[in-house]
């Protein structure tokens, strides 16, 4: 009752709890439509179902193997996309997480190596034996700290030199990739401890998904229910208004980019652990895939609009498309072409929606 108001012109009554049709519903419908398209194509071209267990291979309703692949292949980039989501909502853009993944994977893996491989000394050893077989918390902390430092550098550059986020993070993208190659002179770093390997491979391979989902839920709550989240939306929506309302905009931006860097570091741990190796080329183009996930999920590049639910749905659309093309045994070339088309289509749709909202 307290939410009811009769403040309408002409005494109209509105229910304050009634919300407009959420944008996330559109993304969800798009996901269903894309799945149905693959189901139809699968029936026509392959004679089998895309997501359902048509040949009774698993004795379940769904084709669990494919569901797992879909979710697994977006989980690691999805962790980055969580960071990109809050950066884009704040009105910025981050091109550096892919390279931060490369750098943090290299450094963290150096602290995660095991001394003996099948009874022989580790052939890829970076440090001396005193720095091997460390507790798993050490490489995790190292990765988080490096990710945060790289992100904080982005944030400080953007907030205090006022250069555009595109330029600041482009610089970090190039520099961090260089640092990743310099770290071991281009050599891969391998043979982690069992503990470290379990991060990306544990729980029957589901661990990365659990980490992604846990982080998505956590950051959804942070964005929707904390002062941090509210200020992130406010800055992306109207930076001057945020400043005039007493929000410390510069400090907040540093925090936003620092968190994005930290998430890139987390993603690097999962990736390096899952692959049991770190290479300087890891994470190339991840930032663009992450941005694509957010854009497909309805996060406006203009800032201020969108939610993590959208990003998670965008990530699923992404995964469905990749798996769908593999399922149809189509070349990866088509996959990338269609991916590009969908990214552009998502932004065009968003702008169309925006214009309609203004002229209404």
């Amino acid at each position, binding site marked *: 009752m307290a939410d009811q*108001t009769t*403040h309408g012109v002409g005494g109209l009554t509105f229910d*304050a709890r*009634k919300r407009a049709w959420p944008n996330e519903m559109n993304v969800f419908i798009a996901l269903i439509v894309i799945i149905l398209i693959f189901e139809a194509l699968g029936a026509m071209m392959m004679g089998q179902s895309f997501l359902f267990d048509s040949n009774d291979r698993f004795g379940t309703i769904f084709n669990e193997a494919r569901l797992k692949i879909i979710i697994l292949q977006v989980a690691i980039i999805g962790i980055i996309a969580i960071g990109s989501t809050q950066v884009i909502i704040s009105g910025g853009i981050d091109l550096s997480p892919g390279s931060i993944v490369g750098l943090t994977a290299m450094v963290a893996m150096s602290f995660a190596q095991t001394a003996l491989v099948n009874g022989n000394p580790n052939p890829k050893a970076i440090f001396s034996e005193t720095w091997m077989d460390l507790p798993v918390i050490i490489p995790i902390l190292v990765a988080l700290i490096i990710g945060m430092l790289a992100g904080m550098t982005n944030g400080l550059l953007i907030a205090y030199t006022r250069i555009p986020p595109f330029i600041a993070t482009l610089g970090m993208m190039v520099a961090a990739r260089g640092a990743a190659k310099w770290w071991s002179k281009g050599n891969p770093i391998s043979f982690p401890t069992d503990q470290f390997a379990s991060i990306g491979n544990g729980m029957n391979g589901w661990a990365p998904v659990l980490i992604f989902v846990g982080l998505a839920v956590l950051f959804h709550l942070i964005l929707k*229910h904390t002062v941090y989240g*509210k200020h992130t939306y*406010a800055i992306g929506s109207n930076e001057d208004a945020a400043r005039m309302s007493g929000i410390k905009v510069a400090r907040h931006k540093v925090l936003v980019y620092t968190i994005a860097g930290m998430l890139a570091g987390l993603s690097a741990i999962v990736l390096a652990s899952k692959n049991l190796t770190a290479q300087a080329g890891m994470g190339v183009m991840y930032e663009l895939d992450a941005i694509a996930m957010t854009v497909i999920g309805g996060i406006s590049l203009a800032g*201020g609009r969108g939610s993590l639910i959208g990003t998670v749905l965008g990530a699923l659309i992404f995964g469905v498309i990749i798996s769908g093309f593999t399922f149809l045994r189509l070349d990866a070339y088509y996959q990338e072409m269609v991916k590009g088309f969908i990214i552009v289509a998502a932004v065009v749709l968003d702008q169309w929606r925006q214009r309609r909202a203004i002229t209404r």
Partner: protein
Amino acid sequence: MSDIILETRDLTKHYGGVHALQGANFILRKGEHVAIMGDNGAGKSTFVRQITGVEQRTRGEVIFDGKPVHFESPMDAREAGIETVFQTLALADELDVPDNLFLGRELVRFNLGPFSILDYKAMRERTMQALEKTGVKIPNIRNTIRNMSGGQRQCVAIARTATFHSKLTIMDEPTAALGVQETAQVENIVRTLKAAGEPLILISHNMRQVFDLVDRVVVFRRGRICANLDIKNQEFSGEDVVAYITGAKTQPEYEDAA
């Protein structure tokens, strides 16, 4: 003495060589509604910016509520009890009404630094109270500002003042971009503030509005105050005010300024 809420003495602002505001002596009493008029570039907005901490003054004193003050930012002024409705509305388009009312001073359930948990329910309830108090009509407070008319936006900006029991409200051309009906709604809110005894500084170009709403008119010309007209108790016409604005007339006590 104690009935003066705001006083400025010799308030001056130079932008490099431009003397935007020169020696402004101004007094506002409790419960009084004063209009500031003047041509574009006469120093009205500059005057407001010095009081509200948006800019730092070159010289002079501001005494608010009996104490000399020196606000570093609009937030300082707001915390002291000066609530300003700026020309550019300072609203976040993608947020709803309670979010905007409490922007930068959110009510929280648990204090966890920047990650404090928001108390949406309390903010909604206090928003409703503020809307009741000012008579602002908003169909749905959960609607985002983006989906609102210019008048509704203005009303939200004004309703902020009522939310925080401010001691002084300043409005910078609140109806400049509004239609007839919306203007009337904003003017009603101003009357509500008057009835509640809350002092107001209104910057306006609208002569009819000024004569309808305020007790006193202060005219700025070329960075100086050139007239102080008690329109409530003395006979002044719109032409008189125009004469002061354009420079055809200057009040004797401000002669040296012109």
